[in-house]
């Protein structure tokens, strides 16, 4: 029993540190507020004005779920870079030498990253209310839980990469190779109907496609796949990434 309490305390300690730093580093908080605004108004109004409606929704509304997923994707993946800074500045040693398992250290970091991303989701949901996205409390809760699951998967990828690299520059390079293909070869900005076959094939093996599909389904009622398939794909993907994350942390 006390072993479990120790591990929970460890997770809490690591998470609490991340949460405090997040609030204290003004740049992080400000970018959480600003970048979603850019995404929605940049993409939605710019590209959208020329497109008319998609599946009965204005383009800005149609891509709203995709933009939210994208914000979660970016914030979560980039969170992995902090682990490299922590290591450079030796903050991490204190945690790595503590008598808590690496799985708990990983869990604490992962929840810290997910917290960053979910704060951003809250900003986005508030913006959503002002641009007539059909949100109600039930939808908000469902979307929030799905996005949390997505965030956990993406933070885990970021941490896996961060734990295996030494330089922030290297991290930036690798993460761009993960992030942009994931984003563009998904259904975040367009529907899966009428795509060339090769593109369809790629989007189908991209886990982000299922994430966008689930969130879009919950918010707008447009689903390409059954929701349980979406959730199953995300859970399996998150599970694999978490395992890789714990393994990477053990080697640190």
């Amino acid at each position, binding site marked *: 029993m006390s072993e479990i309490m120790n591990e929970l305390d460890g997770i809490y300690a690591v998470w609490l540190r991340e949460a*405090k730093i997040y609030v204290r580093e003004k740049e992080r908080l400000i970018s959480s507020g600003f970048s979603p605004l850019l995404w929605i108004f940049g993409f939605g109004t710019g590209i959208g004005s020329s497109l008319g409606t998609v599946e009965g929704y204005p383009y800005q509304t149609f891509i709203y779920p995709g933009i939210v997923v994208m914000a979660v994707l970016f914030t979560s993946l980039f969170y992995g870079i902090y682990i490299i800074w922590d290591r450079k500045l*030796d*903050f991490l*040693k*204190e945690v790595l030498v503590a*008598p808590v398992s690496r799985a708990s250290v990983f869990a604490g970091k992962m929840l810290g990253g997910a917290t960053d991303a979910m704060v951003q989701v809250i900003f986005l949901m508030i913006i959503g209310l002002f641009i007539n996205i059909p949100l109600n409390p039930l939808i908000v809760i469902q979307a929030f839980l799905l996005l949390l699951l997505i965030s956990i998967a993406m933070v885990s990828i970021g941490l896996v990469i961060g734990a295996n690299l030494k330089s922030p520059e290297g991290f930036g390079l690798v993460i761009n190779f993960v992030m942009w293909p994931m984003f563009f070869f998904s259904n975040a900005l367009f529907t899966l109907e009428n795509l060339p076959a090769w593109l369809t094939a790629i989007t189908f093996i991209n886990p982000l496609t299922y994430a966008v599909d689930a969130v879009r389904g919950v918010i707008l009622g447009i689903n390409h796949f059954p929701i349980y398939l979406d959730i199953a794909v995300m859970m399996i993907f998150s599970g694999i990434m978490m395992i890789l994350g714990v393994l990477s942390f053990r080697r640190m």
Partner: protein
Amino acid sequence: MINEGSCSGEGEPAVIKTEAISKKFGRITAVDELDLDIEEGEIFGLLGPNGAGKTTLISMLCTIMKPTSGKAWVNGFDIVKQSSKVRKSIGIVFQQPSVDDLLTGRENLAMHNLLFGVPRGIRKQRIDEVLSLVDLEKRADDLVNTYSGGMRRRLELARGIMHHPKILFLDEPTLGLDPQTREHIWEYIQDLAEKECMTVMLTTHYMEEAEMLCDRVAIIDYGKIVALDSPHELKNRIVGDVVKIKQKHPDIEAMKHLEYVRKVEVKKGLVYLSIKDASQHLQDLLAHTGPIDFVEVRSGTLNDVFLHYTGREIREAGAEGGFMERAMKK
């Protein structure tokens, strides 16, 4: 505080034990088949120049680095197979500062309490205890990035001992601090070792630090122990006193044959003699040398001991030079 009773580790198994422990980084052998036995309650020093392998050895003992070969036990636990038990037994102050800049002193300590399993009921009390021990109560709620170097070091020391570890590792605890702060920290360490009956292993390249603090000192160079004893013994047995003589035509060979002379060296026209005990033998020595221009006597230091074994001074060998020297030596 906790751990009352005697500290005597007589007859008990060593608290820290290593057997031929080694660590290689590619072609560099940072730690080279070291054997150590450290007893309970001891303040044990590793003295050596930069790059000697001190930090690497400590990193292995506190389980954040795996040895390339060899074995070690800390508090009776194997550092590789029982690393989590080792971690529960130790406190550590790293060479590089590892307190969190964007947290306050108190928050850093609170985080440590959680990570090191200090029971809920006594967490607050422990924090107050160590804060007062290192005189940081007044600044406890300020962010660490407003602290001076000495304050950070004291905070780290407080953190390292807050969970009452059986064994405390200190890697260069006073590196870069002003002399006054340094002496302060020496006092804390000595007090702690006594009151808490803690075993302390510290590394340093300041010989005064090793002389002042340590019950025993291992002089380490290129990953190997070159001498190990109490500072007093090391100095007396190896060096004794150093006599510096200036003379036109010194008869070095004759000096070498005197039974109390341990070593004769000539540097920049001056003769340096290590002799067993100057107060007894100086007269006799001068009788043998004949007329001289100048004589000066001083007690031997650990630096002389280091010089004796390695032919270099700790300071000469110091300053980041370890890597290149080692690379060139291979």
